[in-house]
């Protein structure tokens, strides 16, 4: 144990004394989070083109259209005559949404009856259609409050309907993605260069003329780097909850557990890369090369179920797939670890496999 402890302390000291490493570890969560918020989380700068089909043609429907036009987030580009035409505009990508005001809308409002409007959304652009949905709801709400003074109480319900795929996600959805990037890329690329750096600085030669085993090196690096990069994980979760009011439906402990497991898995992949690469450059390239399919095929952007069959097989080999599923299920669906037992055990065994391979392949030589 003395050997292992000495090696762990040594690696932690080296990491802490390297400002570039600490910069990357501590700033990455904030930067990535900021990028996602800036890109996907905010209210958006431009006006989203929409279409409105006015089947009613009455006084109140005109007032609604007017208030939508002045709402600021949309630009009403088309006024198609039929719902079919309106939907075609969405399908062709001319607009992101079409609002259909039904016949008899004005009459219902004037009589104080419940009424509905239909919204056709383009869910292939998930975030925009989400935005339109929220904004339209707000606009209709505002209209309702304002107009109810003159017409008395009534209610308008917005029915949503989507084209292209199932109902889309919430903004909170990018938290698993941010966690995935941070827990995968940062620890993996950090540890991937650890052994080749020792080789390049020649410290490896002095290290391996001592009577240590290859598992001493692998396990001590794993634990030292886990100690440092766990801050990424905690920082990201904390930022999400504290600043972006992300709600976790399941248990927070479960979320920490699966994140910690993903961290160890990424580190063991990084170690394997480190063992196999000849120099630091090669290690970085291998880490990035491994990250790209993880980004594309594991449900980062598109659900795995929508990918081609061949790619789905690749995706299901990658640990990030299991992490994203578990994380989403805990965060958004409120599942427990027990319900994610399959995913968690795959993650665990992959971690073990990568570690054993690293130990096996690490030669205590300088060739």
């Amino acid at each position: 144990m003395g050997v292992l402890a000495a090696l762990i302390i040594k690696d932690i000291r080296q990491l802490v004394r390297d400002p570039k490493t600490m910069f990357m570890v501590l700033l990455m969560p904030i930067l990535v989070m900021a990028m996602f918020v800036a890109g996907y989380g905010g209210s958006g700068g431009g006006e989203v083109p929409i279409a409105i089909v006015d089947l009613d043609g009455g006084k109140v429907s005109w007032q609604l259209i007017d208030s939508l036009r002045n709402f600021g987030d949309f630009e009403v580009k088309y006024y198609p005559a039929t719902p079919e035409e309106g939907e075609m505009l969405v399908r062709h990508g001319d607009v992101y949404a079409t609002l259909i005001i039904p016949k008899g809308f004005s009459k219902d409002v004037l009589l104080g009856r419940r009424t509905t409007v239909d919204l056709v959304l383009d869910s292939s652009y998930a975030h925009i259609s989400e935005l339109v949905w929220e904004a339209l709801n707000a606009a209709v709400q505002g209209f309702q409050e304002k107009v109810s003074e003159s017409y008395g109480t009534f209610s308008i319900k917005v029915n949503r309907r989507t084209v292209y795929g199932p109902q889309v996600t919430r903004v909170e959805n990018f938290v698993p993605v941010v966690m995935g990037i941070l827990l995968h890329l940062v620890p993996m690329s950090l540890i991937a260069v650890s052994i080749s750096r020792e080789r390049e600085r020649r410290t490896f030669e002095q290290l391996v003329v001592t009577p240590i085993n290859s598992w001493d090196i692998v396990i001590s690096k794993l634990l030292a780097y886990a100690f440092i990069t766990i801050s990424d994980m905690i920082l990201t979760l904390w930022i999400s909850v504290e600043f972006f009011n992300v709600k976790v439906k399941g248990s927070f402990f479960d979320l920490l557990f699966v994140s910690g497991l993903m961290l160890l898995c990424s580190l063991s992949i990084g170690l394997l890369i480190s063992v196999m690469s000849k120099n630091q450059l090669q290690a970085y390239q291998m880490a990035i090369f491994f990250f790209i399919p993880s980004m594309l095929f594991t449900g980062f952007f598109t659900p795995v179920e929508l990918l081609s069959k061949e790619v789905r097989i690749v995706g299901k080999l990658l640990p990030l797939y299991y992490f994203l599923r578990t994380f989403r299920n805990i965060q958004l669906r409120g599942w427990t670890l027990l319900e994610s037992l399959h995913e968690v055990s795959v993650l665990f065994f992959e971690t073990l496999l990568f570690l054993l391979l690293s130990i096996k392949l690490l030669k205590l030589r300088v060739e």
Partner: protein
Amino acid sequence: MNYVIEAIDLTKYFGSFKAVDGINISVQEGEIFGLLGPNGAGKTTTIRMILGLLKPSAGSIKVFGIDVSRNRKAVLKITGYMPQRFSLYEDLTTEENLKLFASLYGLSGRKVDERVSELLEEFQLKEFRYRLAGKLSGGTKQRLALAVALVHEPRLLIVDEPTAGVDPPIRRYFWEYFRKLRKDGVTMLVTTHYMDEAENCDRLALMNRGRIVASGSPSSIKKLAYGGDIVELHTERKALVYLRSFDGVKKILEEESSNGSLKVKILVDDASDRLVPLVKTLEDNGIKVYRARQVFVSLEDAFIKLTVGG
């Protein structure tokens, strides 16, 4: 005879390049054994194979009778190694480096602290104990490297070019320290390309292009290079007749005569045996000898003679 290091038919290929070509080395207990040769001769490769850092393409190595390919760890426990270039952690302090390696060699608890403060004292590193190793001067780095190599009190110390690019005072310090270690019973294998330094070794192996060209004590290597010792005489011209027939004279290498006087360099089988009788014989025959001495041959001359001159 039990050897500390016994390498038999050691060969190493890098691709198709033969870095070490079937060499045999046997190092005896308690001696300083030098591996001498120019850069690229295969010295470092040989050392790395002895330490198990490289896998030999052919041949076998035993250290203290232990087969390195079978039980490398047992060998490493009693062997210290100082690589050619500084290989300690530059982002750790002097003390942290020493403590790390003490722990890696299996020292524990109080023993680590004791040994480390001993070494800090011994190698005059006390004032640098909290300084990062990367910020030490060249000579101090070398002292630290040697201290680390000795942290577990090894019975065999392998040192690769300890004095390359180091100031003369530190070179002297190192050789003095090596002699002290030898007195303490530590066996040493030292590589160098400084021929003058190699005179400090008890025995040598001269390496060139992956092969051992000659081995033995420094004086026996020189003798081997020329086929004997060289003696220089300043005498009378008529001495030439006697010199040609004298017992033990192998060859007259150079002669230069003017006005009846003669300066000559001759090769004899053994200078210490032959020089005094030779002078006596000449004088007995009425020939004046103005000067007689053995010519000092440097290892460098011998090396060049062995590798180039043939």
